[in-house]
């Protein structure tokens, strides 16, 4: 009789012989789960006079909260920015595969695209919880098209847009809908951006600054209007300058409202950011660092040549090049690789490395009361 059934009949699983990440420390504590939630064993004991139905011996392994990837463009041959005949199937395939990397929630990311792509994809990709069948979708990340021409990176120039209709109208016209959208990356120096930043923030959509030539005060203004994230710090923005640090300066800005914090994405694959630069950012603002993969279609594919859309990509080790060249065509890192590399390059603790991929993205998205932690009441995978 596992409990007096005063609260629930559902089976209780107790993970023993493990180290769990709780209160920013790895502790030798058992983890209790019931009905997809982390359970408080003391309450179970005293209130319900209950105990576990089944014990799982973790043999000393670490149990970490599931990783959350807020920037991933596809993988395993799937490209989220393509309006294929089976958009949902593509997202589901990637969702299933990234479980192996420890990712249990993600934001399918769309690069700058023509309106018809957004209209098609955004109606197909819905927010839903994860489980054994795949990581959960927390919403889409729309990286573009309201970005700077000079910092477009690999985004297609012809689909870039500005807020010529005043702001929100441009968004509705381009995207079609803001349902199932969790994050929008934009360049704050574009005229009319403050209205957009404020409106998106009010709707609960995270506004991220990126692919931009904004100076520090433009970036600070955007933060004051509600922006809270920086898309892949250092990449596609003005470099740090000691008289105008640009967007990078947000890491130590004193203009950020008291009750809020700026988070920043880092691709810690050892390729997209020099380790010394990674360390500078980390040391300047350790609690804001969010690990992202920014993985492209080629992630997860075996080494060699692959034709993806209009491009031929060559995978060599951790690098993905435009075939026949040494031009990087995107990241193929997996989240667990990023966590390990981040720890090794920054010298941070295991706890910090794990939190950069779990707690911090959860805090960024405002969902840390039920994701990104192993606190009582937080989401857990459904019992098997």
């Amino acid at each position, binding site marked *: 009789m596992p409990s007096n059934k005063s609260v629930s009949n559902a089976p209780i699983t107790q993970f023993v012989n493990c180290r769990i990440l709780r209160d920013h420390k790895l502790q030798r504590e*058992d983890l209790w789960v019931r009905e997809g939630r982390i359970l*408080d*064993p*003391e*309450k179970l*004991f*005293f209130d319900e*006079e*209950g*105990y576990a139905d089944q014990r799982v011996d973790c043999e000393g392994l670490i149990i970490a909260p599931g990783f959350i990837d807020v920037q991933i463009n596809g993988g395993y041959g799937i490209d989220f920015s393509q309006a294929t005949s089976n958009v949902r199937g593509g997202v589901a395939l990637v969702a299933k595969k990234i479980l192996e990397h420890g990712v249990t929630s993600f934001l399918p990311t769309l690069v700058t695209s023509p309106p018809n792509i957004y209209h098609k994809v955004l109606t197909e990709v819905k927010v839903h919880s994860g489980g054994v069948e795949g990581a959960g979708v927390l919403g889409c990340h729309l990286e573009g098209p309201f970005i700077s021409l000079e910092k477009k990176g690999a985004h297609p120039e012809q689909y870039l847009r500005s807020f010529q209709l005043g702001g929100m109208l441009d968004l509705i016209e381009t995207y079609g809908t803001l349902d199932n959208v969790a994050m929008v990356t934009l360049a704050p120096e574009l005229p009319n951006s403050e209205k957009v930043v404020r409106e998106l923030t009010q709707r609960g959509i995270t506004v991220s600054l990126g692919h931009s030539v904004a100076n520090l005060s433009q970036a600070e203004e955007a933060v004051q209007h509600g922006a809270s994230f920086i898309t892949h710090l250092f990449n596609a923005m003005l470099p740090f300058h000691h008289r105008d640090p640009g967007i990078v300066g947000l890491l130590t800005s004193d203009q950020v409202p008291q009750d809020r914090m700026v988070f920043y994405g880092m691709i810690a694959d050892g390729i997209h950011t020099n380790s010394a630069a990674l360390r500078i950012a980390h040391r300047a603002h350790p609690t804001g660092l969010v690990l992202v993969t920014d993985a492209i279609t080629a992630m997860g594919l075996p080494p060699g040549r692959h034709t993806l859309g209009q491009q031929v990509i060559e995978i060599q080790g951790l690098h993905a090049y435009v075939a026949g060249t040494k031009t990087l065509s995107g990241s193929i890192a997996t989240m667990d690789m990023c966590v390990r590399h981040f720890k090794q390059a920054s010298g941070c603790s295991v706890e910090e490395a794990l939190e950069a991929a779990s707690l911090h993205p959860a805090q960024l998205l405002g969902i840390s009361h039920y994701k990104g932690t192993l606190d009582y009441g937080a989401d857990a995978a459904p019992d098997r």
Partner: protein
Amino acid sequence: MKLIILNDYGQVGEWAAKYIRNKILNFNPGPDRFFNLGLPTGGTPLGCYKKLIEFYKKGEISFKYVKTFNMDEYVGIPRNHPESYHSFMWNNLFKHIDIKSENTHILDGNAANLVEECDSFEEKIKAAGGIDLFVGGIGPDGHIAFNEPGSSLLSRTRVKTLAQDTILANARFFDGDLSKVPTMALTVGVATVMDAREVMILITGVHKAFALYKAIEEGVNHMWTVSAFQQHPQTVFVCDEDATLELRVKTVKYFRGMMHVHNKLRVTKTSGNLQ
């Protein structure tokens, strides 16, 4: 009474844990015959609890047929407050062993009717058949449980206002903020513990030495409530060197001598079941 004098805190914890283990094993509890154990909280019994957990993990003991009755609990702090005695018992003993929740009994400091809660606790002890072994500690003011100086030696489980000394001593668990320390507690009475078939009192540290002196070398006195156990037929006091510092040399030599003889007898008897 027996006074067992050991070298240090660690030895006291181990001795006490072995004593409890052996008592339970000799009793041989079963589904119709539970071993009823009275338990304290605080720094003193921690070492003993750690050892008991070790014995459980090694398979030397099971708490399946053991019932526990705790001595006390604060009034008015939430049950899951890190300093509540419920939290103490869960974190330092219950969560590591195979005891069932329905066999543990801790006074509820948030009960709607505190007097009824105390009376019902006495009933539960009676219904279980009385305590077989009550383990306790001693306060620097000689109190047993929260039976502060002046408590009747015939008292039963009731609500008590804590002495200023006790509140000061507890402040360290509440961020040093006196306003956060509970001022009342529910506690078993002196007579409640005296009703137990056997009593074991643990005393460690130099700050308890004066209380130990008052408890065993002076008379029975309600200002030092532990002294009541001079009139209990089966009590053992277990202490470390430091706690004996206020005793007469003669007393210490006498009890050390007794232990020496006892240990020699055991070795020659090779009874095997104790220590």
